[in-house]
């Protein structure tokens, strides 16, 4: 299968990776980057339960790489995209991350959308010094030099959305979420923002991800009589909530706001009768009416074909990730890991389809515009835009310039 010289090369590279702390000159990436191409990894769930998030993100990432290559590549090199299908099986993530780092010598890896897959992948990439680009919306609090978050944390969505909702919809909120980390974090934000806005959380419920019967939930909400419902239900089974909610005639009575609705294309799967009026907050949606976005969509139509998936606030990270990383590589002037990390010590600005984005050096998270919008017949209608929303730094706790060794996920406290 493998000839001796290549194996030796890889072994040298691997030893180099292990010794990278002592001698960065030998690191795997620098050995490989001398070739004609450099490899970049995409590790998304392309099959299984969470493929609805993985497939569009991967498609956007492919598009970004194709555009970089078409424009002459990066630092004169073509980029080769290595694809790994996580198969919605968390166990596969650390294994593929190892494969990407050690065997395929990627100089960057993007993906691992679900919190669990991210946590399984992150330490591996840290160990082998492969920059990890995280392209999805998530619970917030990622604070690690090696992790570049190009989408938004829940704070960046929840603060504008709930401030708006307490102002426009009423003071009583019922929070319903899937039972895992991100929705629980967003629950903390909901309580926090209710306090700040003089509102009350009249109920807080968490449902396991495979629940499909929401009749008790709906009864509980009806009993609590909130002014609006904040939903953080995630995934296919939970779409049942919106159906059962609308079937009970509640959609027209109590409004729903959400920071995750639409991320799994819920507004396409469900019918307008079941979704019209639901309010969300994202950094991107296809209906943004700017020349930059119209141009982006035209190119997307061309590269992905007519049957391309809807590009939502999660999938867009697949495109912005490689682009912002490419900006950083250009600044570094090299694919070398240490050079890139140095380059990231100052803010990096890039204008994308949704406007100006700034990758903040302190948090390695991204400042961007947030849009509050509403579903109307399977399309989004803009209600309000808040420009350049900063990532939350947890009262200064996340400062990677001062404390570059932090790897822990920070959790908001009420």
């Amino acid at each position, binding site marked *: 299968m493998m000839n001796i010289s290549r194996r030796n090369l890889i072994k040298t590279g691997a030893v180099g990776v292990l010794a990278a702390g002592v001698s960065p000159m030998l690191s795997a990436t620098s050995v490989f980057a001398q070739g004609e191409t450099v490899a970049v990894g995409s590790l998304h769930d392309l099959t299984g339960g969470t*493929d609805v998030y993985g497939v569009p993100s991967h498609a956007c990432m492919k598009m970004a790489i194709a555009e970089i290559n078409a424009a002459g590549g990066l630092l004169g090199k073509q980029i080769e995209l290595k694809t790994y299908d996580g198969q919605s099986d968390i166990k596969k993530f650390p294994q593929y991350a190892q494969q990407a780092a050690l065997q395929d010598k990627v100089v960057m890896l993007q993906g691992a959308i679900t919190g669990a897959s991210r946590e399984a992948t992150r330490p591996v990439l840290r160990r082998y010094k492969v920059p990890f680009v995280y392209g999805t919306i998530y619970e917030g609090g990622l604070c690690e030099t090696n992790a570049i978050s190009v989408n938004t944390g829940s704070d960046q969505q929840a603060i504008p959305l709930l401030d708006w909702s307490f102002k426009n919809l009423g003071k009583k909120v019922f929070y319903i979420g899937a039972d895992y980390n991100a929705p629980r974090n967003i629950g903390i934000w909901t309580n926090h923002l209710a306090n700040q806005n003089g509102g009350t959380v009249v109920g807080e419920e968490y449902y396991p991800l495979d629940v499909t019967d929401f*009749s*008790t939930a709906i009864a509980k909400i009806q009993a609590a009589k909130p002014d609006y419902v904040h939903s953080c239900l995630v995934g*296919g089974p939970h779409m*049942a909530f919106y*159906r059962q909610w609308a*079937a009970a005639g509640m959609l027209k009575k109590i409004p729903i706001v959400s920071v995750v609705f639409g991320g799994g294309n819920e507004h*396409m*799967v469900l*019918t307008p009768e079941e979704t019209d009026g639901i309010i969300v907050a994202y950094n991107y949606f296809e209906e943004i009416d700017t020349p930059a976005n119209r141009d982006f969509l035209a190119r997307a139509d061309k590269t992905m074909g007519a049957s391309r998936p809807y590009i939502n606030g999660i999938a867009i990270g697949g495109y912005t990730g490689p682009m912002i990383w490419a900006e950083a590589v250009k600044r570094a002037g090299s694919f070398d890991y240490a050079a890139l990390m140095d380059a990231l010590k100052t803010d990096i600005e890039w204008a994308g389809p949704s406007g100006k984005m700034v990758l903040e050096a302190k948090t390695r998270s991204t400042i961007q515009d947030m849009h509050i919008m509403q579903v109307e017949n399977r399309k989004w209608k803009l209600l309000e835009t808040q420009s350049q929303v900063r990532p939350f730094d947890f009262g200064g706790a996340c400062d990677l310039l001062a404390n570059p060794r932090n790897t822990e996920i920070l959790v908001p406290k009420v």
Partner: protein
Amino acid sequence: MDQVLVTAIAIATGIATLVLISLGLAVIFGMMRIINFAHGEFIMLGAYATVLSTNAGMNLWIAMLVIAPAFVALVGLGCERLLIRRYYGNLTTTMLLTWGLSLFLVGSVTALFGNTTRGIAAPLGSVTFGNYSVSVYQLFLIAFAALLVLGAALFLTRTRFGLIARGTMQNPAMASTLGIDPGRVYAATFAVGAGLSGLAGGLLAPVSGVLPNMGASYVAKAFVTVIAGGSSVLVGTTGAAFMFGPIEAIVSLISTPVIGQASLLAAAILLLRLMPMGLSAGFRRST
């Protein structure tokens, strides 16, 4: 008062859903002792058949009540003839086989239709009880599940095929000495079981997220219900549903849904400890 009523409806919905998603599996397991790992995918196919034919202009009720079960029964028959038939009596091989089938079906549907399909809304609107409003379709599901159980009971006890099915299930070898071809009975039962799963999928299509992987969220619960129910298809499954549905709904209502789900599973464990051959065996012993 209205709160009691709404709670009762929520509990009845829990029972009805359990009955609907378990019946097809129960028929196949009860008759042939096959643990059908592709059960969830049969439900998924039923939901897809409903959604796709409705989107193509078919009347929703026909799509749900006729097309979905008929289509999935055909698929089931095909699977039985091509795959399962050769491995009857071999629990392990059929498990492996139906697991492969399950992945194959998820993969094919994803490849054909992608992972986002435009769904259909629940018909019939809603009714209001005091402070609460409830979906009429939900009430329809409860009534339909009750009718389905009743119909199945009549079918099994009053028809020629029902008699053959019960006889073959109890003792296939003896049935064959009476001129009955167990192979054909198995094929027909497999098709009926698949058709019932398809019907469940069709009925759930307007109230759940119709996606290629949707089967996964039903399959564990259906397994637990069917096996805790024991060998008697109808009595066991319905009995188990009547026990587990309220437990989950009530515990979820007074504490959290996680504890509700855990208490369903704990109830199943306790039940099987007390009645080691399943619920229906316990019934039979006491009568």
